[in-house]
């Protein structure tokens, strides 16, 4: 194919990783054989570019070249056809969406570091220079790190802020393209609500529910539940911490450096004023949702 293309585009060159640099004056594409080719921009019209992009994968010069396995995943994720039997899985897997600060790190370095954290090389698909997904296969090992730990390890080596949105484990490829779309969209929504670096699909549910609620209803929920506490940042921060501490008074008091009696007193005051006892789960949950709704 390269020879055929060269007949049309005389400036075509093949990128040889480690030997020559990617010239910014060239448009780069990945062929079906995972070769990266470049054609000088002077030789390309916008029509040519559209045509080439239809059968070659545009290559962002910052992104790592896909391995065979990554290519297989990319195809299944982008497929418009049913994906159930696209290829055979050797274990269950999950998508982990990642987002890193823009222009802070080379994706190749990120890949190198991520591969060192898992027993087997994990496929990584970059969407652009700052986001993508890791396809983590389920492994029974006592050496697995949590994603919170992974962030700390990576931050100390790569000096970059990272967010992970961890999806559920899947046993098959059924509707995997849809799952991928939903997961990446959910991740973007959730990171608009929280500063937590790692969010799982379970943690995400309240944020997604609130996000999908009409603004008028959101407003009504926060006003109805929080009443005169709507703008009381101190009390709301206290309740948020209380929820995060599993409604445990001692732990919350310790976390907020507050005497437990003061905390009890402030929770009692909240009950008196609103009729809501956040010490009970069924009351704490709507208050938590109301706090999210006002964000």
């Amino acid at each position, binding site marked *: 194919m390269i020879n055929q293309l060269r007949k049309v585009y005389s400036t075509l060159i093949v990128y040889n990783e480690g030997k020559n640099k990617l010239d910014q004056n060239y448009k780069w594409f990945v062929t079906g054989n995972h070769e990266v080719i470049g054609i000088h921009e002077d030789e390309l019209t916008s029509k040519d570019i559209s045509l080439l992009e239809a059968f070659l994968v545009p290559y962002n010069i910052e992104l790592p070249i896909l391995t065979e396995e990554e290519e297989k995943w990319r195809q299944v994720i982008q497929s418009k056809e049913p994906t159930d039997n696209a290829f055979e899985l050797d274990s269950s897997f999950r998508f982990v969406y990642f987002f890193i600060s823009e222009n*802070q*790190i080379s994706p190749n*370095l990120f890949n*190198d*570091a991520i591969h*060192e*954290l*898992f*027993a087997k090389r994990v496929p990584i698909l970059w969407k652009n220079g700052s986001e993508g997904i890791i396809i983590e296969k389920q492994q029974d090992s*006592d*050496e*697995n*790190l*949590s994603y*919170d*730990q*992974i*962030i*700390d*390890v990576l*931050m*100390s*080596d*790569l*000096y*970059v*802020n990272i967010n992970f949105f961890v999806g559920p484990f899947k046993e098959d490829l059924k509707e995997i393209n849809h799952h991928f779309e939903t997961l990446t969209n959910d991740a973007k929504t959730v990171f608009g609500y929280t*500063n937590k670096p790692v969010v799982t699909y379970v943690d995400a549910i309240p944020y997604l529910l609130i996000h999908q609620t009409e603004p008028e209803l959101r407003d009504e929920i926060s006003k109805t539940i929080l009443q005169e506490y709507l703008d009381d*940042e101190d009390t709301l*921060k206290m309740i948020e*911490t209380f929820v995060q501490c599993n409604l445990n008074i001692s732990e919350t008091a310790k*976390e*907020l*450096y507050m005497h437990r009696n003061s905390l009890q007193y402030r929770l009692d005051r909240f009950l008196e004023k609103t009729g809501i006892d956040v010490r009970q789960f069924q009351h704490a949950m709507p208050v938590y949702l109301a706090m999210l709704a006002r*964000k």
Partner: protein
Amino acid sequence: MAELRLVGIKKVYDKDVVSVKDFNLEIRDKEFLVLVGPSGCGKSTTLRMIAGLEEITEGDLYIGDKRVNDVAPKDRDIAMVFQNYALYPHMDVYNNMAFGLKLRKFKKDEIKKRVDNAAKILGLEELLDRKPKALSGGQRQRVALGRAIVRDAEVFLMDEPLSNLDAKLRVQMRAEIQKLHARLQTTTVYVTHDQTEAMTMATRLVVMKDGIIQQVGEPKEVYDFPNNIFVGGFIGSPAMNFLNGKIEGNHFVMGDVKVEIPEGKLKTLRDQGYVGKDIVLGIRPEDIHDEPLYLKSSPETKFSAHIEVAELMGSEIVLYSKVDDQDFVARVDARFNATAGQTIDFAFNLSKAHFFDKETEERIK
């Protein structure tokens, strides 16, 4: 030289959540500066702004003479250690320490020199070919420190590096980090919520609350002269006692109990118009005495109280009691055998106590 200057630093999230407000601080070369405060006080955010992991909303940050607000974290010449001392599980100790340098394309010889040097400093020479799984918690934490040391950076930033360790190991690592700082003399900014860690490790400490610096000073200075009720209560364990009362004549009066205020302190209170007003007495547990000799020499601050709980700590006993229905804690010599259920005499050493304005909660100076 690695001085840091934070000038009018402010951090605002989502347009209206202010995490750090008007933070001004000069961190001296070779200093071990500890940022301490309760959860949500802005200490980690401040550290992350120094690291470049959080954008600074307002203000200027200087490392040396250079303004670094817009300098990428990797170009700030800093090394970071975080709470999770996790390591790459499939790499041996040598490669865990070398990996950051490999990513930065350091030459092999240079990497080896730096890793060997860090291993020697941390006593890890015999463990270089071990995987993390074969290391104890303390050894892993030392490797995590090693990963920072090999950077040979101008500034170390540590975010609660000991909080995931058990109590015994935490004490041990505290000492190791201090020894390391004494040896390397690298300017260090250390974040913790643990006041004991702050007191024992800091050259200077910065107490924070709600994104605002409450006090900056050497540990002893902050302990002995807290700026306000928050600092007095946060620094020290058991915490400083705060008792509400009134100034009447020469006395601080709590219900039926009157204690005489030393002349110097009384003059300050009088000069500032606190006579007849409600104020707060702050007194540390070790400044409440039950020794017969002290009671005899200080009849003017003596009162009786019922001991509700007595906790024997070895050479000392911590007594929980009440005066005028207000709780207080005393840390007294165990030789005098105070036990729960007794009613005994106590005396305040008011020369070491402080008075605080009830409304502003500031120490009356």
